[in-house]
């Protein structure tokens, strides 16, 4: 195993420690819980607080989206494992300014339980909490059963929109509704070319045979819908786009925000190869890309592959995506 770590049990603590040091201009560690990272503006101003959280190993998600006009507080879990209810609770407490807190997170069993428990505990303390559960991963369940779909890189666009809405001074119900609208307008698909390994296990828990790719793979190696021969990049881009467009109501004349993330081990140049084809193919269909994000935005340790995320924009979503924001994972400077 060609990996860099000390004791596998310490990886997350050391990741958080290093992250907080490296990005001290944007974030700080909670005094109350060593698994909660806060933005400098967390808990200040007259606005709804934005909280998320999830397992580690997806960096820059989730800690990398703590920042200005982005996420206020993040609960940090073990590698690929939900944060504790107490970490979510502390994140909620820290983010509350009295206007309530929106917890915007991904659809996984552990996160659902821990957020539910934290929300109950927060309610007892008089903090109003609303949740939005991201379920953008097309291949994880049929559209008719969207409640079972997992949340993947579309969460980033949900945080961006939710936090921007909160920054306008909107009430909790409006922030929740807008974040919900953002994820409803978003679809993602992943393809895997090589598996990933939890250092404590020392070997991958799933396999992808050389020369093949897994279409629809999840962010922890959850099986996809098909295993095919690995094809040239343009064919892969077309296949990913087809899965999204078949599931989405994008039509000629629509505008989209596109996020293409590597899964950890895929060279960034290959992401641009894919992206070039994707934007051209969207253009062929009359769909304009208003703003694109290409890079390692939501990884899965050293998995090889990529996730394509497409959000259909309306005037409000466009405005919220364009609002300046700063974090180590995502920075938006001006209108696109």
């Amino acid at each position, binding site marked *: 195993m060609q990996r860099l770590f000390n004791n596998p049990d310490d990886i997350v603590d050391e990741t958080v420690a290093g992250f907080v040091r490296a990005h001290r201009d944007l974030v700080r560690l909670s005094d109350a819980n060593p698994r909660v990272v806060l933005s400098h503006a967390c808990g200040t101003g007259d606005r709804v607080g934005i909280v998320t959280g999830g397992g580690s190993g997806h960096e820059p998600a989730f800690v990398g989206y703590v920042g200005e006009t982005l996420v206020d507080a993040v609960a940090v879990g*073990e590698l690929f*494992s939900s944060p*504790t209810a107490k970490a979510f609770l502390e994140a909620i407490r820290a983010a509350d300014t009295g206007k309530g807190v929106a917890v915007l997170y991904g659809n996984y*069993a552990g996160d*659902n*339980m821990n957020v539910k428990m934290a929300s109950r505990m927060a309610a007892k303390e008089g903090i109003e909490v609303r949740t939005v559960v991201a379920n953008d991963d097309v291949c994880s369940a049929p559209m008719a059963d969207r409640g079972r779909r997992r949340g993947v890189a579309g969460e980033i666009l949900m945080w961006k929109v939710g936090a921007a809405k909160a920054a306008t001074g909107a009430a909790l119900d409006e922030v929740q509704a807008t974040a919900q609208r953002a994820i409803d307008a978003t679809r993602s698909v992943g393809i895997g070319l090589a598996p990933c390994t939890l250092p404590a296990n020392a070997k991958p828990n799933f396999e992808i045979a050389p020369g093949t790719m897994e279409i629809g793979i999840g962010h922890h190696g959850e099986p996809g819908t098909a295993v095919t021969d690995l094809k040239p990049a343009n064919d892969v881009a077309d296949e990913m786009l087809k899965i999204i467009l078949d599931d989405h109501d994008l039509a000629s004349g629509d505008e989209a925000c596109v996020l293409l993330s590597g899964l950890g081990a895929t060279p960034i140049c290959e992401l641009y190869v894919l992206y070039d084809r994707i934007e051209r193919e969207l253009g062929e269909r009359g769909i304009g890309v208003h703003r694109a994000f290409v890079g390692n935005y939501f990884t899965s340790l050293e998995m090889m592959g990529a996730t394509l995320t497409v959000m259909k924009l309306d005037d409000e979503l466009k405005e919220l995506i364009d609002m300046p924001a700063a974090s180590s994972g995502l920075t938006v400077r001006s209108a696109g």
Partner: protein
Amino acid sequence: MTSFPNTGSGAMVRKVAQIVVENRGYLSEIDGKIGDGDHGNNMAKGFGRAAERIADDDTLDASFAILADVLMGEIGGSMGPLYGMFFSDMGDVVAGKDRIDALTFAAMLDAGCEGVMAIGSAKAGDKCLLDALVPAVAAAKANASLGFPAVLDAVRKAAAEGRDATKDMVAKIGRASRLGERSRGVLDAGATSCCLILTALADGIEPRLG
């Protein structure tokens, strides 16, 4: 009616924790076949840490409260809240009691099971810890009038049968559920750890009955 004293239960709970820690590798290995292979690591971490904070003469409810606090506060994942609720709600039933008889024990298991079901969205048959727990609770309630030793035997037997039955099930919850048919043929790690815990608890109670 036979019963065991609430105080002095800490040693027994520490023994349960020790058995979980000893099975770290086994539980991770089962989990690795259809899950992400961290069940044994997370369980051992939680139970091991709790054992360090439980004193031998602690009451059962105090011991369970410490265990629940560590699982919910420091472990996370899915098993943290599920087992956290299990021990927390079991502890509530025996809090303040001097002695625990078979009826109270059955009510305690029942409350723990309700707690698990309230926080999760699973049910028996989904290939999860409830497949060992639900039949064990039913066995405890059905045998409560036959005396404590009969209850403990029934719980051990029902939990083991429930655990073994998960081998033929297709997972409907958790990460293994994404595998569909590919999840068949392997024991469920949660049902296995639940059976371990219930068996160790029964084994610990038996010599203390009086």
